[in-house]
C-alpha cells in the first residue's frame, strides 16, 4: 500500500515537472505571438498573451518598406531563393557521397572516411575568414545568385548529412543491391532504383534539417550579401530590430513571427521525421 502510494506521488511529480518545464519552453513563443496583436503601450504591461484590445497595427506596419529597397515579403522570397536550391543540392550530393562510402571499396577509403568524420568536428569558426577570402577571390561576395551560400552544397559540404545517410545505409541489406546487379543494373541504376527509395526517410530528414538551418542562417548572409535588395529574412529581422526597438515592438515581433511561419509549418507537418532524423544520425542541434 505504502509502495503504491509512493509510486502515485512519483507519477504526479513527473507530470508536474514535465508540464512546468513544457510551459517554460513554450510560453515565450505563445507570448510572442500574442504580443504581435497588442498595441505598443500594452505589450510589456501585461504578461499574458491575451489582450482585450487586439490590433493589427503590428502586422500592418510589418509590411513597411525599408528605405524603399526591401520589405519583409521580398526578404523572405530572397531567403527561399537560396534555401531551396541549397536543400536540393545537399540531398543529391550527400546521397551520392553516402552511397560511395557505404557501398563500395576503393583505395584510401578508410583514410577518406576518417577525414570525412573529422570535418564533423572541425569548428566552422576557423573557416569563415579564409572562406571569405576565397569567395572574394572568386568574385562571389554579393553575387546575385548567392553563390557562396549555394555552391558548396553541390559538393556535399554539410558532412553531417553524409554521415547520417551512411548510418541509414547500414540498415539497408546489401542483398538488395546484389539482386539489382544480377538483374543487370549498373551501379548508378542501383542507386536510383534501389537505394534512393530505401533511403527516402533519410533524404527527407536531410532536406528538412537543411531547410531549417539554411533558413536560420545569419552569419552566411551577413558576410556574403551586401546589397540591401538581396537581404534575406534573417538580416531583415535584425535590421528592423535595430531600427525600431524601443518604440515599435509589435512591428518587430510581427516581423519576427511572420519570418518563421514557413519553418513552423514545416516543423508541424513533419515533426516525426525531425525526431527520427536526429536519433538516426545523431545530428547536431
Amino acid at each position, binding site marked *: 500500500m505504502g509502495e503504491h502510494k509512493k509510486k502515485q506521488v512519483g507519477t504526479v511529480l513527473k507530470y508536474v515537472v*514535465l508540464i512546468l*518545464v513544457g510551459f517554460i*519552453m*513554450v510560453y*515565450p*513563443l505563445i507570448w510572442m505571438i500574442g*504580443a504581435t496583436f497588442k498595441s505598443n503601450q500594452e*505589450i*510589456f*504591461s*501585461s*504578461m499574458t498573451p491575451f489582450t482585450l484590445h487586439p490590433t493589427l497595427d503590428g502586422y500592418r506596419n510589418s509590411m513597411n518598406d525599408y528605405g524603399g529597397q526591401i520589405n519583409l515579403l521580398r526578404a523572405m522570397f530572397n531567403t527561399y531563393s537560396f534555401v531551396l536550391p541549397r536543400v536540393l543540392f545537399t540531398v543529391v*550530393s550527400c546521397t*551520392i557521397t553516402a552511397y*560511395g*562510402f557505404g*557501398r563500395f571499396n*576503393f*583505395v584510401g577509403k578508410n583514410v577518406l572516411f576518417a*577525414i*570525412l568524420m573529422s*570535418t564533423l*568536428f572541425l*569548428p*566552422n*569558426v*576557423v*573557416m*569563415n*575568414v*579564409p572562406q571569405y*577570402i*576565397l569567395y572574394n577571390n572568386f568574385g562571389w561576395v554579393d553575387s546575385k545568385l548567392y553563390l557562396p551560400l549555394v555552391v558548396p552544397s*553541390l*559538393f*556535399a559540404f554539410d558532412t553531417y548529412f*553524409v554521415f547520417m545517410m551512411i548510418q541509414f545505409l547500414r540498415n539497408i541489406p546489401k542483398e538488395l543491391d546484389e539482386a539489382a546487379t*544480377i538483374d*543487370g543494373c549498373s551501379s548508378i541504376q542501383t542507386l536510383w532504383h534501389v537505394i534512393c527509395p530505401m533511403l527516402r526517410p533519410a533524404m527527407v530528414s536531410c532536406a528538412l534539417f537543411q531547410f*531549417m538551418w539554411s533558413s*536560420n542562417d*545569419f*552569419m552566411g548572409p551577413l*558576410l556574403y550579401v551586401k546589397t540591401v535588395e538581396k537581404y534575406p529574412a*534573417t*538580416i531583415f529581422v535584425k535590421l528592423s*530590430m535595430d531600427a525600431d526597438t524601443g518604440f515599435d515592438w509589435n512591428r*518587430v*515581433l510581427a516581423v*519576427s513571427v511572420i*519570418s*518563421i511561419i514557413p*519553418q513552423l509549418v514545416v*516543423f508541424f507537418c513533419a515533426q516525426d521525421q525531425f*525526431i527520427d532524423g*536526429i*536519433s538516426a544520425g*545523431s545530428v*547536431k*542541434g
Partner: protein
Amino acid sequence: MDNNTTAVSGTAADTGSAHTKPSALQVFWKRNYGAMFILLWMIGFLVFRLYPFFSSLVYSFSDFDLFKGISKWGLDNYREIFSDAKIMKSLGITFKYAFITVPLKLAFALFIAYILNYKIKGVNLFRTAYYIPSILGGSVAIAVLWKALFRDEGLINGIIRFFGGDGINWLSDPKYALFIISLLRVWQFGSAMVLFLAALKGVPADLYEAATIDGASKLRQFWSITVPMITPIIFYNLVTQLCQAFQEFNGPFIITQGGPRNATTLFSLLIYNRAFKSYEMGMASAMAWVLFIIVMVLSLIAFMSQKYWVYYGDESR
C-alpha cells in the same frame, strides 16, 4: 553490366583458360570505380575546406589586410593575442560561456529525457513542446524574442515586479548578460534530449529488473545503470555542444552586440570585428586558429578520457 563482364573474366582467370585477361587498368577500375561517387565530396573538401583551412594558417603569420595585402610576416599576431588584455578577457568570457552553457544544457536534456522515458501519457506532445525551441532557436526571430523577454521593461521583469520584486537589468548589467545569452542556448536543449531519449530506450530493461530485485534504489539505478549505459551519447553531446559553444556568435551579436562593457564579447565576435569590420584578415586568422586549437585540445581530452568513462558495450573500439 559491369559485373557481368567481371564475372566472366573472373572465372576465365581462375580456370587459367586462354580467355583474354583483363588489363591492369581494368582490374584497377573494377576495384575502385566506386570512388567516383565520392568525387563531388572530394572536390568540395579540397576547395572549400582543405585549402581555406591551410591558407588561414599561412595568413595567420602575416599582416594580411583585405585591401592592402601583405607587407610583413611573423609571429606578431600571436604575440598581440596573448598580450592584449581585451582579447584575453574575451577568451576568458568564452570559456565561462561554454562551461555555463554546456553542462546546464546537457543536465537539463538528460533530466527531462529520463522522466520522459517512463511510461508517460502524451509523450509525443511533451517531446514536441521541448523540441520547438531547438528547431527555431537559431533564428534571428528567437533572438529578438529573447531581447523582448529580458529587456529592462521586458516580460521577465514584468513578472518579477508583479510578484513584488525589483526588476533586474538582465541585459545591461555585466553580471547577468552572459548568463542570459547562455540561457538562450540552454533553452534549446531539445535536440540533445531527443538523443538522450533514444539512448535511454536502448538500455535493456532486464538490467533494471535485476537491480530492483537486488533492492537498488531508483537513484542508485540511475547512476549505476542508466548513466554508464548511455555514456556514448553523453560523450557525443558533450563534444558537439562544446564545439558549438566555443563558436557562439548569433546570440551575443544580435542581442547584446557584445555589451554591456564587453561582458558578452565572445571570441567569435572579436574575430568577426577584426575580419569584417577592420578587414585585418591576418589577425583574424590567427585568432581563429587560437580558438581552433583550444577546441581541438578540449575535444582531444574528451576523446582520450573516453576509455575511463565511456562504455561501448561488447563492441570494442
